[in-house]
């Protein structure tokens, strides 16, 4: 594990356009088919422009940023030995179809856990106007060398 990783930031990901059918597909996949996720009229009745993505949809955007970290050979992170330990989302608002979202990842901490390392990263997800939508924080548990 490269300890100099702490504090490192990655460039913003290319904008991700949230599609209505993608939101519906994701809602069905997580068994969360409340009408606000599937019916634009129900979402509009709550004050949203289009269908509202289920809360954990933010992971799809966060993952684009995490791929930058995982693809970098200098990090010392080996994907086959990596498991997801913790996940947290802090929302300013829900993600809505039509949003163009960008994620900016930074590594905020590394802690030893026996031979493994716990790597905490934060992806700040913002919309096309630059406003904060959600911050997604992951702890990845990366196994040791043996």
């Amino acid at each position, binding site marked *: 594990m490269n300890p100099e990783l702490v504090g490192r930031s990655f460039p913003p990901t290319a904008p991700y356009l949230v599609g209505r059918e*993608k939101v519906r*597909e*994701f809602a*069905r*996949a*997580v*068994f*969360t088919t*409340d009408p*606000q*996720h599937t019916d634009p009229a129900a979402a509009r009745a*709550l*004050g*949203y422009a289009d269908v*509202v993505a*289920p*809360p*954990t949809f933010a*992971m*799809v955007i966060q*993952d684009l940023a995490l791929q930058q970290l995982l693809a970098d050979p200098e990090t010392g992170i080996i994907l*086959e030995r990596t*498991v*997801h*330990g*913790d*996940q*947290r*989302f*802090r*929302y300013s*608002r*829900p993600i809505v179809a039509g949003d163009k979202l960008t994620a900016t990842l930074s590594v905020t901490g590394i802690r030893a856990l026996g031979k493994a390392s716990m790597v905490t990263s934060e992806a700040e997800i913002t919309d096309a106007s630059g406003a904060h939508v959600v911050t997604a*924080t992951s702890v990845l548990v990366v196994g040791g060398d043996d």
Partner: protein
Amino acid sequence: MATAELQIGDVVADREVHLTRESLVRYAGASGDFNPIHYRDDVAERVGLPGVLAHGMLTMGVAIGTIIPWLGDSGRLLEYGVRFTRPVVVDPEAGATLRIVATVGAIEDDGVVRVDLAVTHEDTSVLGKAQARVRVS
């Protein structure tokens, strides 16, 4: 929905969700997480797992989905976090049933409530500290 009506320990929502291998393939496609340990027995076995596992993020998503009809508006959700403590093995024939019980864990100031999500598979907890902070008034 108002804080005054809620008390610590109140169950605000609960449900059971039955996962099958099809559910895992569907989630893989919807989320873009195509790690083969979530659909290939041979790969799961090779890396020493007890079987094909549900994506942790699928369990996390199913858990929070339980309270959305009660919340009414997803915009009331301020924060949601979980710890992945135990894998959910999804049998090719029998699948796996998740049980979710959402309880008021704490009542904060300013109309914010902490909802604790107890998520179990075969009576064993699979998520740790699964908590959501929601605005209820």
